[in-house]
């Protein structure tokens, strides 16, 4: 199997990457919501790693929480958790959200 693996990957703070980006945050109107749950599915849990903006984290009592301010609107979480019904995903209102300078 692979010699490289999670342990060997260089550690990096995603916040430092997101810092380069421009956003217009729609304060108080998050476009993605995690529904209340007791125990997250494997798919929802995986988002704490897979989300490229690090929006998902493990909170109190092993529940998954989201702060969508750094979201790049890729849709990965909807593809994974749309079927489980654990999240609600919309585009931000027109004009809000990520604003790519280079794309």
């Amino acid at each position, binding site marked *: 199997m692979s*010699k490289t693996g999670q342990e*060997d990957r260089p550690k990096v703070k995603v916040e430092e990457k997101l810092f380069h980006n421009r956003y217009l945050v729609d304060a108080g109107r998050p476009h993605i919501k995690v529904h209340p749950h007791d125990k997250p599915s494997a798919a929802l849990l*995986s988002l704490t790693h897979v989300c490229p*903006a690090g929006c998902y984290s493990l909170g109190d009592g092993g529940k998954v929480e989201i702060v969508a301010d750094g979201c790049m609107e890729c849709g990965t979480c909807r593809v994974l958790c749309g079927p489980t019904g654990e999240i609600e995903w919309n585009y931000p209102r027109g*004009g809000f959200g990520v604003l790519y300078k*280079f794309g």
Partner: protein
Amino acid sequence: MTAEHFDVIVVGAGPSGNAATYTLAKAGLKVLQLERGEYPGSKNVQGAILYSDALERIIPDFRDSAPLERHVIEQRLWMLDDSSYVGMHYRSDDFNEERPGRYTILRAQFDKWFSQQVRDAGATLLCETTVTELVRDEGGRVIGVGTDRDGGKLLADVVILAEGVNGLVGRSSGLRNELEPASVALAVKEMHFLPKETIDTRFTLKGNEGVVIEAMGTITEGMTGTAFIYTNQESVSVGIGCLVSDLADKGCSPYELLEAFKNHPSVKPLLAGSETKEYAAHLIPEGGYKAMPQLFGDGWIVVGDAGHFVNAVHREGSNLAMTTGRIAGETVAWLKEQAAPCSKVNLREYTRRLEESFVMKDMRKYKNMPSFLHRNLPLFDLYPRLLSQAAQTWFRVDGVDKRTKEKEILTSFRKGRSLSGLFGDAFKMARAWR
């Protein structure tokens, strides 16, 4: 409530939406284009390579005004293991031609330019407007859209959905299903800025010459995926993408993969001293022909990424987007000319024209590739390692005779994959390629 009526509403101002809108406006139709971003391109991400042919068929003299970065004179294909790459490079001075076929571009700038051409052609563009629903008549026929702006519905004879990979409007309206995690790749990308002379020196370039590097191997840790490095004028685009299903199963952070790729000994010197100015993420529909949704219906057509038009093997997408957008536009203009309604039966002409073009021919040709590549651990891990070992054995001069070296190499392949495994992989590959 009286709503303004248009011949066509196009949802989205990416390559497919712009191609469709431009074609329709040039044909003299009254077109409204809706874009949720602050400006066209603000939500769009691509590597990005522009293929001239697709754009030339829409705007023949695009080279006179489009913001192009570099024309590609060299293609490098790399198979990486942890410390090496085995590469095939093709570089030709023939690519220094009057009308080059491939350019690197920055999508935010390119999309703005394309959108200006669209507006100059006479179409109306409304930005900062998210389409929230399709409006239908009693018979179920699509007759317009609803948006998140005040002011009611917008009506048209036909709606062209150029809404990109997420395609929320079409999905929430039941036109197509949610993407399968194994049919879509998540790619992340960074823009690294360097002085032009530094890029020229590091990649052996002059003038506007550019290099494209596509890499696969242990960098994706056995997951199905690839990485890339594209040279722009004063920046280098660096990215990596893997299937969403693989990332989820492995619990892998894409930005950690990107960091590992940037730190690979073959990549690190190319980026040394650069300043990062943007980090982007985007989905790529890579399920191929078998993942394609219904492409048209009563009063609607789907184009570009929303229609799953991507040739993952050849890293083509924006050219398929522009081509499907253009053909959708031409089809609608043709129907309008005959005063024929954009009904489901009449819009079958759209797919008939797609079948005649390279679009559906290529989609069909590779219809078995996604399932071949999916979970193909040897291809993304074992083979890159074996190849690198073989090359190293072959090129080291260390007193071992050549026949012994040959034997060593053959044994490593047999031990790694067994003879039947090797033949099986070759057979499956050939079958999927055909």
